[in-house]
């Protein structure tokens, strides 16, 4: 509380309604000589808009606007219709009994409250009404006309509808004691009507028993009619809940809503109607609601609807076991992606059931097979074994399905799993089933098959998965003591799942334990052992000693070729892990050779296309790293074509190849093609796979990178900020893709002069990497150089130089001389020394690095050209213009030949060479061409920033 504010308020209220003349005098009295106080009051008075409107006549009352309590007198006539009575009254309007003069007939006239349909929506109202008019189906109550009538109360929108004298479907079935098959036939009829509307683009969104009436036609046959189609459109989603119309109240509406509709993230979708019809079918078959909400309070019921799985229909009627149960489960699936995609599909399945043919719907394949398997082995496999494995399986499966689920739903799911587990263990205590390791391993093998069939592209919600894995790990620790190989398999599974999230520190103990278990129980050389060993090596690669990891993977590759054969899945996985290690340890040539063997292999069956595309993409990346941009471009283009051909244009693998192609094009200077390509791919991916899927995230980050490279910082920041937020949520901060996005966004911040934001990102990244990796790991040194570039821009030159020197020293200690990373850092440091005027130190360092580079890697390597470029500038500063020109010309020509005329590095060398030629004042004829810039140049950094730019971009 502020006494000062109290005083200001008091004076303000005292004077606010006074005439201006009086007010001044009063203020003089109340404020006296305290001018600050008076100024404060006057400032408030300036912002007091109420004053002009008179005193307290206008009161605020939101609740009175358009609620059902507003009495409306029954009018005699609305538009051309004569009102004869009232049929009902609802939250969004009143339904009158009315008579139409031409043609003469009784109709139901739905009059919307003015508040439910404001003036701005009138146009839309007309348009939608026109669409509704086109719905002509015997199972849909026809809309004859929609219009806006002028009344004394202003314009009133109305709908003239077919008047249906029927009974709500459920009540009708009960009263008429219809059999199961009769009920199903009525349901199918209803589905046909709803499908008719869907085909014309109209979704009901408020299907419930109250809206589906049954009646007997002239021949006494039973027919159904769906009411209120499209009313939700006309009145908009927010006004559609017809709370007081049917006495079942709010819950009567909510009870038919799909979970995604209740959690508020649902765009209008056919699957909302599918779900509602599923609830209806459940009730038709069981006379109960799929969720246990009967007799509960609204809050309770809502909680159940939002969080629980629907009940099984078989608990009400054992006859429903089998197909009908499956149809219900598919229609009611909480995840819309697993639901029937059309109402026609439900109808088809029910017709098939009625004709005793097999139905199309199957439960989610993995879970379905899992349960089948579990049931088959129930007597053999110990319940504890099964439940632990189920926990792991469900953890993974649930997290896959949870990509669109809310956190709360996930937590509930997790608790459900834990509960099931507890029950199972309790049951196990009583069980006398023999514990048969062979059988248990069969189960494990099955589960692993299932889990490994899940591609990393499907992984989502990293943190939630981590939580569940931790839970699974804790439980695993205390069970299965007598089944070491099952334990080994499960440890390996958990380790893989952690690693896929970038949680290497959590993964390592599990993979070590798995290895130990395999080895001490005679399962060395098994597929599981190879997988664990490869995983351990990959963890080493990402967090520890890169050369050791590469050595280990080379050995493993040879062993797996010998033990498992070249086409075994594990051998292939190890091969790709090895290729990655070769590339990271600087052995690009070896990586290329290995990839070429994959491409030249005759094996084209089974999984081969997958590996082929993978190899093309990887090879493209190696070429891009080596700056052979035309070759990289060619490879990515082939990968795109192959993937499109084998998997389809919208497949994640095709989109990933496209991303590689776009990034290569951008680096080669063809941003005009690259950017729209990424934008389009991103749109496709969002629409086809969802905004939070890994493939979409990768495309977003790539788009940000391309925009940054071309100086479009604001656009880059926008897309990268969004991408990073999603990355944090979906993949977690330890995932390398998340970290890559952090680096890119940090650079954008830096280049926009937002140094604090840049530093805060880089500091966070440094901390995460320090926590999870060996202190001298190269990935940590990279971050320190990023930080140095920001410090440089801030003018903190000494700090920046110290960081670069320390990073260089660490890298030398880690890789030794001659490694490309070491050379890159040497070049960076040499640039730095040159900029600081320490030209001798700069030259010594750069020359030594150049010699290392040529010895280790040959003259055609891009790093050689970078060093030539670097040395040229050093020579120039030392006054050796002729030598500088020679070196720069070398760098420029080599880069132009290798990367193309407009590549980033080619442009940098061209620019520097041009400056050198001007400096010499003697541009020869041949040089004129060099001077002419042939490329659409991106926005270059401001002059003052250029020197810091050098630290990184060259």
């Amino acid at each position, binding site marked *: 509380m502020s006494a000062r504010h109290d005083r200001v308020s008091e004076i303000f209220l005292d004077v606010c309604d006074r005439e201006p003349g009086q007010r001044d005098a009063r203020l003089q009295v109340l404020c006296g000589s305290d001018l600050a106080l008076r100024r404060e009051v006057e400032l408030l008075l*300036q912002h007091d808009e109420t004053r002009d409107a008179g005193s307290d006549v206008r009161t605020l009352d939101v609740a009175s606007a358009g609620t059902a309590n507003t009495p409306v007198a029954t009018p005699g006539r609305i538009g051309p219709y004569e009102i004869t009575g009232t049929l009902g009254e609802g939250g969004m309007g009143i339904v009158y009994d009315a008579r139409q003069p031409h043609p003469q007939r009784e109709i139901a006239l739905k009059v919307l409250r003015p508040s439910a349909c404001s003036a701005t929506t009138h146009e839309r109202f007309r348009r939608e009404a026109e669409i509704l008019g086109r719905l002509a189906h015997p199972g849909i109550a026809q809309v004859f006309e929609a219009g806006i009538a002028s009344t004394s109360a202003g314009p009133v929108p109305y709908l003239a509808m077919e008047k249906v004298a029927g009974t*709500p479907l459920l009540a009708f079935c009960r009263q008429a004691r219809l059999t199961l098959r009769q009920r199903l036939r009525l349901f199918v009829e209803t589905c046909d009507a709803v499908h008719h509307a869907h085909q014309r683009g109209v979704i009901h969104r408020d299907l419930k028993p109250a809206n589906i009436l049954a009646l007997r036609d002239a021949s006494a046959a039973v027919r159904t009619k769906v009411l209120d189609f499209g009313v939700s459109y006309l009145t908009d989603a*927010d006004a559609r809940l017809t709370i007081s119309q049917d*006495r079942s109240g709010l819950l009567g509406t909510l009870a038919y809503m799909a979970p995604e509709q209740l959690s508020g993230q649902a765009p209008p979708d056919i699957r909302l109607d599918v779900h509602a019809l599923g609830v209806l079918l459940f009730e038709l078959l069981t006379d109960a609601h799929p969720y246990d909400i*009967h007799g509960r309070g609204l809050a309770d019921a809502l909680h159940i609807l939002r969080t629980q799985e629907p009940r099984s229909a078989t608990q009400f009627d054992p006859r429903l076991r089998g197909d009908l149960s499956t149809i219900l489960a598919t229609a009611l699936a909480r995840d819309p992606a697993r639901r029937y995609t059309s109402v026609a599909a439900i109808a088809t399945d029910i017709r098939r059931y009625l004709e005793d043919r097999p139905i199309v719907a199957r439960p989610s394949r993995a879970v379905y097979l899992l349960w089948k398997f579990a049931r088959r082995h129930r007597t053999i496999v110990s319940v504890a074994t099964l439940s632990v494995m189920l926990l792991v399986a469900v953890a993974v499966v649930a997290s896959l399905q949870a990509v669109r689920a809310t956190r709360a739903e996930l937590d509930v799911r997790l608790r459900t799993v834990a509960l099931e587990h507890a029950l199972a263990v309790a049951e196990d205590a009583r069980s006398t089933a023999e514990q048969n390791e062979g059988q248990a391993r069969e189960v494990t093998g099955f589960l692993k098959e299932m889990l490994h069939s899940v591609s990393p592209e499907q992984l989502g919600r990293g943190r939630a998965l981590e939580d569940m894995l931790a839970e699974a790990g804790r439980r695993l620790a205390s069970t299965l003591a007598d089944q070491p190989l099952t334990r080994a398999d499960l440890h390996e599974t958990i380790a893989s799942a952690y690693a896929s999230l970038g949680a290497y520190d959590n993964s390592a103990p599990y993979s070590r334990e798995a290895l130990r278990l395999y080895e001490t129980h005679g399962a060395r050389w098994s597929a599981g052992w190879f997988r664990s060993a490869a995983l351990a090596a990959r963890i080493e690669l990402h967090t520890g000693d890169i050369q050791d990891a590469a050595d280990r993977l080379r050995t493993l590759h040879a062993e797996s070729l010998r033990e498992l054969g070249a086409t075994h899945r594990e051998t292939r996985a190890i091969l790709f892990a090895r290729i990655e290690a070769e590339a990271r340890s600087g052995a690009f040539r070896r990586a290329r050779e290995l990839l070429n063997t994959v491409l030249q292999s005759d094996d084209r069956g089974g999984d081969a296309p997958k590996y082929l595309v993978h190899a093309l993409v990887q090879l493209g990346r190696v070429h891009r790293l080596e700056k052979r941009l035309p070759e990289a471009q060619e490879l990515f283009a082939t990968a795109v074509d192959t993937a499109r051909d084998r998997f389809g244009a919208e497949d994640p693998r095709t989109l990933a190849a496209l991303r590689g192609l776009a990034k290569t094009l951008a680096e080669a200077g063809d941003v005009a093609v690259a950017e729209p390509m990424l934008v389009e791919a991103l749109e496709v991916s969002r629409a086809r796979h969802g905004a939070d899927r890994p493939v979409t995230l990768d495309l977003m980050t790539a788009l940000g990178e391309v925009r940054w490279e071309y100086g479009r910082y604001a656009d880059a920041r926008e897309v990268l900020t969004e991408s990073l937020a999603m990355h944090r949520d979906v993949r977690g901060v330890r995932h390398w893709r998340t970290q890559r996005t952090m680096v890119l966004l940090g650079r954008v911040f830096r280049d926009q002069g937002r140094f604090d934001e840049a530093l805060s990102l880089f500091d966070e990244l440094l901390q995460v990497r320090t926590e999870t990796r060996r202190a001298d790991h190269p990935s940590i040194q990279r971050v320190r150089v990023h930080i140095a570039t920001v410090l440089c821009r801030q003018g903190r030159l000494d700090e920046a130089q110290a960081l670069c020197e320390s990073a260089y020293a660490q890298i030398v200690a880690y890789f030794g001389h001659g490694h490309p990373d070491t050379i890159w850092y040497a070049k960076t440091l040499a640039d730095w020394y040159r900029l600081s005027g320490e030209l001798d130190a700069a030259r010594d360092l750069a020359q030594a690095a150049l010699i290392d580079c040529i010895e280790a890697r040959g003259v055609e390597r891009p790093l050689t050209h970078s060093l030539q470029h670097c040395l040229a500038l050093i020579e120039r500063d030392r006054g050796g213009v002729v030598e500088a020109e020679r070196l720069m010309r070398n760098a420029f020509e080599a880069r132009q030949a290798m990367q193309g005329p407009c590549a980033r590095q080619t442009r940098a060398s061209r620019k520097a060479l041009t400056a050198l030629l001007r400096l010499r004042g003697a541009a020869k004829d041949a040089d004129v061409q060099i001077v002419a810039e042939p490329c659409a140049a991106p926005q270059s950094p401001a002059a003052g920033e250029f020197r810091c730019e050098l630290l990184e971009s060259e």
Partner: protein
Amino acid sequence: MVTPTSDPLFSESEANDGWDAFYERLRLIAQRAFRSERRDHTLQPTALVHEAFVRLAQHEGVDWNDPKRSLGIAAQAMRRVLIDHARRRNTLRRGGEALRTALRDDVADTPLDLTRLVALDEALLKLAGLHARQARVVELRLFGGLSVEESASVLDVSERTVKGDWRVAQAWLRKELA
């Protein structure tokens, strides 16, 4: 057309009356909040209400038939939901005409501009530090859609006090957000 009879399944849920009243109230506030952004399909007003509803449901031990307690909590829940939504939309620009109009007296007819809500929320926090009751009055009336009378009842003060608080707070917030 026949007005359908109720489904017997739900007719026993008598305890819902208080909730229904809330629901209706929240719905109107949400409707108002969304009138200004029809093209946004990421969150519908109904969904917003559901979210507020779910938050309300998490308050244990509240007698929903006691309007004093429950109206206040409803207003808080709505504020949180709207602000969260606005934050999610990442539209954090401050100031501007829309918010100032949102603070006019005839709130019922004026769209709440979500893009300004975050700024408003922050200003309200600041006001709460100066004068907690004035901030409460704004929360109840703006986010809870309560009338002067209802606000007075919730806060256990006279209607005159509520009107005074409301007027000072409005001027102060407009000044703050100008």
